[in-house]
């Protein structure tokens, strides 16, 4: 329970840590939504794929966590692009909902492919074990801190890409107005592929961060999917800064609910956050109306 400012600070700190882990899958989800305008539930599957790709890189090839995260990003991005092109893209003419339903099936498929090869056992990464640092009663777990830093680096890289490069400008243009971007000579197909690769890749990166924090199994991605949607909806569907902000809000909210209610109800908090935002401000904190 919260007794003095140290406890409050601890909760805030834990909330930011939790939020930074949710941030990347949420950004990935919104990145795909911004360009293709459908909710891609397969981010859960991509997160699991990334977590296992990172696990192979880390424990089988002996790469340190930082490089393994890069492998997780590339593997999930590649699988995401492949799945999009073969399974989801042909469904786009049938409407956003058809694609959304197919993406749920896709998550199930990816999960079971992972399950086929790795089984249901929990697996951990090879990590140096650190003791918690203590600052005047506030605990900081070095692993969680480094996860938050990795997440911040990945998010900053995406923001830099969107803000400063030609490709980033083109992506924002397509997200803003696909027809206009098309007229101006931006190939929407290419931008869609880039968005899916980055979105799925970030989901995979985030999936491995979840694994670094705890352990992984085929349901790793699915377990956080509700919190990830909550972050995306709270921030505003399709808004990338919104996803980052939404993840922090949801992370803090879940952490506080974990203290005030029962830890098991963290996910329920995420669901309530979705309902609250949809009732009061459906476009989300940073989203556009419409």
């Amino acid at each position: 329970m919260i007794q003095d400012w140290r406890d409050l600070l601890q909760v805030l700190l834990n909330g930011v840590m939790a939020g930074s882990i949710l941030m990347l899958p949420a950004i990935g989800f919104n990145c795909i939504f911004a360009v293709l305008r459908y909710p891609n539930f397969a981010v859960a599957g991509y997160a699991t794929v990334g977590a296992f790709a990172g696990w192979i890189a880390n424990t089988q090839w002996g790469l340190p966590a930082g490089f393994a995260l890069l492998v997780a990003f590339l593997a999930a991005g590649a699988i995401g692009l492949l799945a999009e092109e073969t399974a989801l893209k042909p469904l786009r003419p049938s409407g956003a909902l058809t694609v959304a339903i197919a993406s749920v099936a896709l998550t199930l498929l990816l999960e079971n492919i992972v399950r086929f090869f790795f089984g249901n056992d929990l697996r951990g990464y090879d990590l140096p074990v650190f003791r918690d640092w203590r600052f005047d009663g506030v605990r900081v777990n070095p692993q969680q801190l480094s996860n938050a830093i990795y997440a911040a680096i990945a998010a900053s890289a995406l923001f830099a890409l969107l803000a400063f490069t030609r490709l980033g400008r083109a992506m924002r243009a397509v997200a803003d107005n696909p027809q206009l971007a098309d007229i101006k000579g931006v190939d929407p197909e290419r931008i869609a592929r880039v968005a899916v690769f980055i979105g799925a890749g970030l989901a995979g990166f985030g999936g491995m961060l979840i694994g670094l924090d705890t352990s992984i199994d085929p349901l790793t991605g699915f377990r956080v999917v509700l919190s990830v949607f909550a972050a995306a909806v709270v921030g505003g569907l399709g808004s990338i800064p919104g996803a980052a902000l939404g993840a922090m809000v949801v992370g803090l909210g879940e952490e506080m609910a974990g203290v005030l209610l029962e830890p098991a109800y963290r996910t329920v908090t995420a669901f309530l956050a979705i309902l609250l935002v949809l009732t009061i401000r459906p476009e989300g904190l940073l989203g556009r109306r419409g």
Partner: protein
Amino acid sequence: MEAYIIAMLVFAGFYALMALGLNVIWGLAGMVNLGLVGFFGLGAYATALLTKNLAWPMPLGWAAGALVAAAAGALMAVIVARLRGDYLAIVTLGFAEVIRLVASNEVWLTNGTDGISGIPGPWRGEVSPQTFNLIFLALVWSAVGVVFVLLARASHSPFGRVLRAIREDEDVAAVAGKPVLWFKVRAFALGAAVVGFSGALYAHYNAYIAPDGFAPLLTIYIVLALTAGGVGSMRGAVVGALLVVLLLEGTRFIAQEIPGVSPVQKAALRESIIALSLILLLRFRPQGLIPERTRTRSSP
């Protein structure tokens, strides 16, 4: 083998009821519902608690299961009916997870992950298990029959026509003076009630329910059943449910024939086949085997 076939047909009946319920919500009113298993679970828990702890008679328990699910559905529809379909997909999916979490954690009420056992069944214990299965088979398929007739009538009634109009174009329906929100809420509640009823029957058949039994996988089965049968078609919903059970059980036998595969791998293979069939169906035969028949077919 005979007992096995009867058990599978009973399950096909549960799936057919759920697919019929989904068809009202998704097929007629055009609102996606990826939280079916949540309503199914609500119905199951409602009747299990009422009949076992408070000794309500079973038919009242079934009605209660349907009512609780309908109330949850109506509430959800009120909250999300004005929003676009993609939000509805997220909210319903989340709803089902919340139901599962609550069922896992409110131990005082639901006995947590251990589940509730010893749920009464019609004449269970008084007749041989085989007779019990047969009784239940008759019960569940009579329920399918009654629900089918009622929903098929509703679907061709003015109510059903308005729902289709809302599905095709909400604004036009509103301009024609139809209270769109009210129709959506009723459709959602009706569909959820049927799904909850199916859950209630399931609880009494199985005698045991636990949160694990209400995983999102079941929702996928039903979406697959309705897609295979034909979205919007009540006959399609029933045929689709039978097909899904056939596919599920067929893959069980095929998986047994593959040598050198562990049980976990077999389960993974079967679930992969289900997921893949849904993706392929959506692509190659989105209208299903028995497409919806309406007097004015809009171009697909």
